[in-house]
């Protein structure tokens, strides 16, 4: 005898499948998941984790990359040399300055542009495309083009400054101006990325909060800091991680514009140091040690950022 059912609630009870069929179904799902996931895991192992492991392994060796002779195991010597060389710390400092300015600069400017172009202005679609375009152009091409902007002999800046009687800074021979030059070029290139992400986020903001602020006649600045910016927090967090990781890996612009100089290392960042040591000085082991240190630094920064975000949430 079956239990009486209450009219209208006949389907409120979950349908119970026989245990055998349930097990079969979950096996099927597991199989499907495996088919979808395994190729990607294989690709990750081959192209990401294996090189990572190889790199860490290499960092314990002294190996001239062009040599056919076997590499020599030297333990932590590469790490000790890195830590005791003042040039390494100068490069770390340059990397921090470059990364900080690149992240802050491209995010602040990207947000500013997004706020401006989120309005109903004439020709905004064209301007949006123009702002985004540099992001898809190769860094090497931008590096070459910007030499015509910064060159103190014939560049655009010297021409403009010359008209008001000011001499152009020596962008290629002065270490500070050289670092400014590559940072400014990098920010210009990446502005389009932060702009597009912020623009998308702005268009997804809650309209009711905006309307409430307007009804309360909240001043613009207060509305931006109290209503708009808090809603953009997840986007800001996402951008701070992705822009930071990208800035850490800048190579092409430095290679084309300054080659890491002037004064040998004034615009060298850690990634560029890896390249210099491995392929210019042929010290693949030492280059691998620098790469490992950089990997650990990025890992720590990312974990701290994620933790901070979790705490806030």
């Amino acid at each position: 005898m079956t239990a009486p059912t209450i009219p209208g609630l006949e389907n409120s009870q979950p349908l119970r499948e026989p245990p055998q069929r349930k097990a079969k179904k979950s096996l099927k799902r597991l199989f499907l998941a495996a088919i979808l996931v395994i190729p990607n895991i294989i690709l990750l192992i081959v192209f990401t984790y294996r090189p990572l492991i190889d790199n860490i392994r290499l960092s314990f060796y002294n190996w001239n990359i062009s040599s056919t002779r076997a590499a020599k195991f030297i333990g932590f010597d590469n790490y000790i040399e890195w830590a005791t060389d003042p040039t390494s710390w100068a490069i770390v400092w340059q990397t921090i300055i470059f990364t900080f300015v690149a992240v802050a600069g491209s995010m602040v400017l990207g947000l500013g542009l997004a706020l401006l172009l989120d309005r109903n202005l004439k020709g905004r679609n064209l301007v949006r495309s123009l702002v985004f375009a540099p992001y898809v152009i190769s860094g090497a091409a931008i590096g070459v083009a910007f030499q015509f902007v910064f060159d103190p002999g014939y560049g655009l800046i010297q021409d403009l400054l010359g008209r008001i009687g000011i001499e152009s800074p020596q962008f290629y021979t002065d270490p500070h101006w050289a670092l400014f030059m590559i940072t400014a070029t990098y920010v210009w290139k990446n502005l389009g990325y932060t702009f597009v992400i912020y623009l998308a986020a702005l268009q997804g903001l809650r309209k009711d909060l905006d309307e409430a602020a307007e009804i309360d006649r909240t001043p613009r600045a207060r509305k931006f800091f109290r209503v708009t910016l808090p809603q953009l927090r997840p986007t800001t967090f996402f951008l701070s991680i992705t822009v930071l990781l990208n800035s850490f890996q800048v190579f092409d612009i430095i290679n084309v514009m300054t080659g890491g100089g002037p004064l040998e290392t004034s615009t060298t960042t850690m990634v560029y140091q890896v390249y210099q040591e491995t392929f210019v000085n042929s010290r693949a082991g030492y280059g691998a040690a620098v790469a490992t240190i950089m990997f650990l630094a990025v890992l720590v920064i990312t974990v701290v950022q994620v933790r901070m975000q979790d705490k806030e949430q």
Partner: protein
Amino acid sequence: MNISRRCILSLAGLTISTAALSACAGTGSSSSSEDKGNGTLQFWSNHPGSSRDIEQKLIDKWNKDNPDTPAQLIDGGANYEELGQKFNAALSGGDLPDVIVASDVTWFNFAFTEATTPLDDLWKDNNIDTSTYVKTLLEDYKYEDKHYGVPYSRSTPLMYWYVEDLKKAGLPTDRGPETWDEFLNEWGPKLKEATGKPALAVADGSNYLDWYFEGAFWTFGGAYSDEWDLKFTDPKTIEAGKFLQKIVDEGFVKVVKDSANEFGIGNTAGLLESTGSLGGLKESAKGDFVTSYLPGPKPGTTTGGAGLAIPAGISDERKKVAVKFIDFITNTENTITFTQETGYMPVRTDAADNPEQKKYMKENPNATTAIKQLEENTKSQDYARVFVNGGGQKIGGALDKIVAGQDVEETFKALQEDLQKVIDRDIKPNL
């Protein structure tokens, strides 16, 4: 986005396990098996002296004459260093080329590490006559009595002067300053006063200042090194460093990234550049110019540029074709073509006797300066620049610091320590 404790622990585990792995794994040697290639000879070049078109023309000629062993021109980078780096990557990753352009600062490292092959036996086995190569240029590629390259785009620094500027300053147009003192006391001030421009543009340390100014150190009695003995703390070397700082401070010399362009657009009266820029400057210079030797006492400068080498890791069959290809590319007829198009020095002695070349030299007196200077005013480079890994770049960086006003003695002392470490670690144990 969420990273769990488990995730972090996994990453930490990964790091520890990879460190453990490193202790038991072998590493670091290029593949010992011979690379058989794909049947087409690959010539990796950075097209020195904007020579892409002429190189392609020479390869087309080879392909016409040798349809069974075709060759292909591969872009190896924007400069000698990039090509060297690309070759380094190929050595560890496979797909080796058949012939590479190896510069004055890269060939030795490749020979020393056995990445390139000695050519003497290949010449003998394939009946290749090397007697007409300019001997001093060929001997530059000798290490332990074996040759690891042949001269190709060989150059020497020259001084270029706008004739009009020299006339304005009342200076002779048939020679350059005979000593660096003459440059400091006469040429520099006169040109600056008459034209309002620096007398000379020179490339910075990232663009071979260390090569252009190497001879100047010799004229002061100093040097970068005497074989493996570094000389940066020698009083004469320091004196030369201070001299460089002085001529920049006085505004007689402008150190820039692209010196040929600086001169080409007329921002300086003169230029210290490679003879390989002669072809380009004929097109781009703002007015008529003459070339001159570098100041003495002799030898006032050195040779440079690049040669051609063959990777050791390719099959014997490929080496056989490669050595014939090199002989073809640098034969007398092709040397003449290459020289006339680029401004590089002829690498074959019989090229100079060729009527066509004689006619060219007569019509282009600027091109003869380098050839005469080679005989009269040059010597081979110091080991510290060309045989020490990254040596040229480190010396260039130090010269940049001196140009920027840093203390010469301290800069050279730090450079000496840095290079000594490289010699002791990478070279001496393997000599």
